[in-house]
């Protein structure tokens, strides 16, 4: 085949700096037709930047890009799309008010002979694309109504619709659960067979071995290793990324859980106004004790986020039924401020949307929750403030230039740690974590797990919602499985494994087990 | 410009309405150009007060907020309501001409106040003569304040507005041939605060000004404040125009010695109601034009005139 002569994509000597940060240094990368090329690296290693260069999003770089042996210089994403390069972005870039079909065809609308938009045709094609991705969605629904996972599938369908020769997938599975991931792998295999070159970025090491042909590892903006992915073990990949062996991912510990700090019985929320895309609690019971890490599992849209938001008082207004006992007393969620003061802390699902003010400094973001408590008379003593920030930054090993830097310039994992640190500073007794390691690299993940362990050791109770089965099984003492807004089962991770968890989530035996959890309709 | 057409007869030809006499009840619509100018607010107040003395009258007011288009709508609304007489103080002449003509041709008597409209499709016009007022002011300066000549500073009304032009031109005619120099003119947009800040700069450049002539009283008062801040208010005389009989008006300012003189610019409100009474109640004819006299106000007559106007 001619790809032996000239690879589909050849990037030579690519460099790119943001101010003082060198995101890419003299990178060489090739992608052949019909291969899946995994791009690995820590948060901030430069993976996304490199791919933004290939897809015409970042244009002021050094070095040359060739497609099919032809040197190209894109000035806009549209250029790259015309040249057959499509990219699924890490941050879901969709327009909430437009329909699924309109989003998929945005910028390339199908027209009728009267030059008007041909909705019928667009909807039809969209239906087909979504089917290929294994999801049944009405193409006319506004994207804003969809759940994060569904949105991710829409971006995948959108990329497919471009019939690109080169498809870049930047963490496409971060919001997907195993069933959707399987479906996506089928799609990827099809594409590979039809000669599409795929660049695949992920922090889920187990995926790499399954679908990638080759892997390139970046560290600090430079290529440090190349592998044949089939021979790559998760451990070897992690070591290449971080530059040292990564310690045991999951904690090994045996804590005696202390007193009970949270008891939820038959929680039901009837929102005042229905909001589409949400699955409010509809019969949830669980307990969390001091020093315990309790997982919240379930499929996409099973209501995990809504549970945490409801407990924290950050969900929609409505009537709560059932009982919440927090630190032994009845607790009525009244809003985030009230909950923080009572000793709860929430690390939200999407740090960019709900966690950080990206333009503001690490300092401002880190102390935000306690800024009105560390001083007297409403003033903020600089020294104490900086002291607190420095302490938490070094405890959490946040990588940054200075604490005055805008938090938006940190890598994803480090941004996550800043949110985490902010909530730890409030000295909570109950930590509510919603997908805390989404998009976080293996090294940072290990550090976050360690932090969780330490927090638990100090007597904090943790409620951890996650889509990663390995994380739930590896980190939690118990896992409560949700389905359709109800707690359907509780598993002890000392006995149950990933397979049991998956089965419980899918509802196998769920009906029978629902009896275990008292209440429900009552 | 028809100025000499005191015909004595309301244009009875186009006037199909019949005089209802003293037994009728009459709704008068008063369309005001804007009430942000104290002068026009006073006009409304005068009309309200005068109409209260005529039991047959009830008056509705509309405020066009300086917008010709809004004033057209206001008049249209009056027509929809089938008012018996229209008083209008137009924002500008041309834009309101056709809607005024429409009312007039429907047989509704129209009294135009202060500013005119084009043509003669109205019953009567009542107003004062700005050129005349400016000339009176100039003559007063030339004969009384600066008999031996001197320097004058001028604060003008809003650039481009007719009264500003006429009050300026009239003043120049009044000092014609005398050894009086207008050293600088600045625009005060009719506003007190603008008069103050403009006078700041004016006095900076010309500290030797002897008379300050402002196109209205608020600007004259603003200039007085500026002079006071600069400590030179005793060295000069201030003249304004309007002489409104309200607490914040020029009459009080003269009485209290801040201004040396002001010239009454009559609102015509009372005269308009009198005219309406003649047309609707007394069934009399009215002249096509009624020019109102100005009056020079100095400290000698300020208090008397004020009290008369508010009695």
């Amino acid at each position, binding site marked *: 085949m001619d790809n032996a002569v000239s690879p589909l994509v050849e990037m030579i000597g690519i460099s790119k700096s943001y101010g003082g940060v060198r995101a890419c240094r003299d990178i060489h990368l090739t992608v052949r037709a019909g291969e899946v090329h995994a791009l690995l690296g820590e948060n901030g290693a430069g993976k996304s930047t490199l791919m933004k260069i290939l897809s015409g*999003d970042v244009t002021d770089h050094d070095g040359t890009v060739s497609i099919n042996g032809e040197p190209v210089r894109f000035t*806009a*994403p*549209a250029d790259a*799309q015309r040249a057959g390069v499509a*990219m699924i*972005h890490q941050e879901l*870039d*969709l*327009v*909430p*008010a*437009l329909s699924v079909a*309109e*989003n998929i065809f*945005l*910028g*390339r*609308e199908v*027209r009728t002979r*009267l*030059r*008007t*938009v041909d909705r019928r045709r667009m909807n039809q094609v969209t239906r087909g694309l979504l089917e290929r991705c294994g999801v049944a969605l009405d193409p006319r629904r*506004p994207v*804003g*109504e969809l759940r994060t996972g569904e949105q991710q599938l829409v971006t995948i369908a959108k990329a497919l619709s471009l019939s690109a020769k080169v498809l870049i997938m930047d963490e496409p599975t971060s919001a997907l659960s195993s069933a959707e991931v399987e479906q996506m792998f089928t799609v990827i295999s099809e594409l590979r067979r039809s000669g599409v070159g795929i660049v695949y970025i992920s922090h889920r090491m187990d995926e790499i071995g399954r679908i990638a042909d080759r892997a390139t590892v970046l560290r600090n903006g430079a290529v440090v290793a190349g592998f044949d992915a089939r021979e790559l073990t998760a451990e070897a990949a992690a070591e290449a990324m971080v530059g040292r062996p990564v310690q045991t991912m999951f904690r090994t510990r045996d804590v005696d859980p202390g007193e009970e700090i949270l008891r939820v019985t038959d929680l039901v929320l009837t929102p005042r*106004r*229905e*909001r*589409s*895309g949400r699955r409010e609690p509809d019969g949830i019971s669980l307990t969390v004790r001091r020093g315990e890490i309790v997982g919240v599992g379930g499929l996409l849209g099973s209501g995990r986020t809504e549970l945490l938001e409801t407990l924290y008082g950050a969900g929609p207004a409505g009537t709560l039924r059932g009982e919440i006992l927090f630190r032994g007393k009845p607790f009525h969620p009244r809003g985030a401020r009230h909950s923080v003061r009572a000793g709860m802390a929430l690390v939200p699902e999407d740090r960019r949307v709900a966690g950080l003010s990206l333009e503001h400094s690490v300092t401002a973001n880190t102390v935000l929750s306690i800024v009105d408590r560390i001083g007297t008379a409403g003033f903020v003593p600089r020294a104490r403030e900086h002291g607190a920030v420095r302490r938490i930054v070094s405890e959490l090993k946040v990588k940054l230039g200075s604490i005055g830097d805008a938090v938006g310039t940190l890598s994803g994992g480090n941004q996550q740690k800043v949110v985490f640190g902010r909530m730890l500073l409030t000295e909570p007794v109950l930590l509510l974590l919603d997908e805390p390691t989404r998009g976080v690299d293996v090294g940072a993940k290990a550090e976050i797990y360690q932090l969780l362990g330490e927090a638990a050791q100090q007597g904090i109770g943790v409620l951890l919602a996650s889509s990663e089965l390995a994380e739930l099984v590896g980190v939690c003492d118990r896992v409560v499985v949700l389905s359709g807004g109800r707690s359907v089962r509780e598993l002890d991770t000392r006995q149950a494994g990933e397979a049991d968890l998956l089965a419980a989530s899918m509802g196998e035996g769920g009906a029978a087990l629902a009896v275990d959890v008292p209440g429900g309709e009552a | 410009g028809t100025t000499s057409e005191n015909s004595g007869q309301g244009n009875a030809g186009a006037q199909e309405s019949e005089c209802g006499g003293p037994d009728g009840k009459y709704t008068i619509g008063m369309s005001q150009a804007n*009430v942000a100018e104290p002068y026009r607010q006073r006009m409304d107040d005068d009309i309200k007060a005068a109409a209260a003395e005529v039991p047959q009258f009830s008056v*509705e*007011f*509309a*405020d066009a*907020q*300086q*917008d*010709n*288009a809004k004033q*057209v*709508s*206001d008049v*249209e*609304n009056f027509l*929809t*309501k*089938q008012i018996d007489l229209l008083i209008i103080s137009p924002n*500008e*002449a*041309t*834009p309101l*001409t*056709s809607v005024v003509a429409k009312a007039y041709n429907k047989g509704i008597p129209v009294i135009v106040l202060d500013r005119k409209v*084009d043509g003669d499709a109205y019953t009567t016009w009542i107003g004062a003569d700005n050129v005349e007022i400016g000339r009176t002011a100039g003559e007063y300066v030339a004969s009384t304040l600066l008999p031996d000549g001197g320097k004058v500073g001028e604060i003008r009304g809003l*650039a*481009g507005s007719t009264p500003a032009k006429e009050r300026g031109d009239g003043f120049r005619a009044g000092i014609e041939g005398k050894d009086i120099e207008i050293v600088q003119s600045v625009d005060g947009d009719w506003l007190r605060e603008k008069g103050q800040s403009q006078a700041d700069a004016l006095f900076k450049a010309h500290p030797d000004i002897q008379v300050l002539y402002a196109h209205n009283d608020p600007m004259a008062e603003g200039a007085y404040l500026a002079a006071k801040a600069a400590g030179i208010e005793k060295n000069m005389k201030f003249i304004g125009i309007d002489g409104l009989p309200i607490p914040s008006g020029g009459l009080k300012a003269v009485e209290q010695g801040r201004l040396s003189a002001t010239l009454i610019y009559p609102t015509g409100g009372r005269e308009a109601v009198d005219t309406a009474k003649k047309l609707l109640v007394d069934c009399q004819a009215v002249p096509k034009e009624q020019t109102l006299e100005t009056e020079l106000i100095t400290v000698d007559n300020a208090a008397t005139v004020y009290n008369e106007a508010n009695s």
Partner: protein
Amino acid sequence: MSTLFRFQSLFGLVAVFVVAVVFSPRHNGELLFLDADNLANVVRAMSEIGIMAVGMTFVILVGGIDLSVGAVLGLAAVGSAVLMVNDDFGVAATVVIVLLIGLFFGFLQGLASALFGIQAFIVTLAGMQIARGIARIWSGGQGVAIAYGEGPGEAPVAFSLLGERTFNGIVPIPALIFVVVAVVAIVFLRTSAFARHVYAIGGNEKAARLSGVPVTRVKITVFCICGFLAALAGIVHAGQLNQGSPNDGFGYELDAIAAVVIGGTSLMGGRGSVVGTVAGALLLGVLNNFLGLHGVDPNVQLLVKGLVIVVAAGLQRLRPSV
């Protein structure tokens, strides 16, 4: 659901209309408000604001704002008068030139805002002053009266059509123009690819750019549309009032924006419709008419209008959020 939302944007209008009918003053038993002439007046009186509000809808949909429309209306009114009266241009030439001026003014503002990234609020705040300044200088500061006739210094009689009514003298020409503009805009916004791009930019500018939407070009274009329609409103204004004055249209921008917002278009961009804007403009028109017909004290009118605007905007909040 989107039907419901569209319905809601009309809800306020219907409510105000019903109130106006029920409490209409009567004359010989007839409801004055429902008089054909009166209804025609309502639409005529709102036609200029309405035309501008349609253009404003486009700008607001991309997340911008245009404070200059009132001043551009004044500039266009002056331009129409000066070109026909002083420079003896024909109607067609005048209209084309004035529309192009409005378009070009919008273009410059769009350029400053989209290309140089200066906030639209501040660009158009400055644009407002600049347009007023130009209008004052061009007109010599005075309103330029338009007299009709064949001679020099007189405007062609055809232009006076704008002050007329058609269909048995009932439907005012400006109202007709407003309806045409609105219908074209509604169809355009529902069916064109350009409109999808407008919504996309307002909803998520980055996503739009990554999808290959020509963001800068679309943004500049909406400012051109807005300037163009403001100039059209200015021509209508001059034709209705037989004059072009540099002070015309003062403060109209706020009415136009109020119409758009009452119509349910979000100032954050990405959501809204011209149907809503038309409803918003008519609501304001009916309200003005109602208050005027009742002879409500002008100062109280200010209060009432303020409250109605807040309530109407508040009602929009009830629409289902995504």
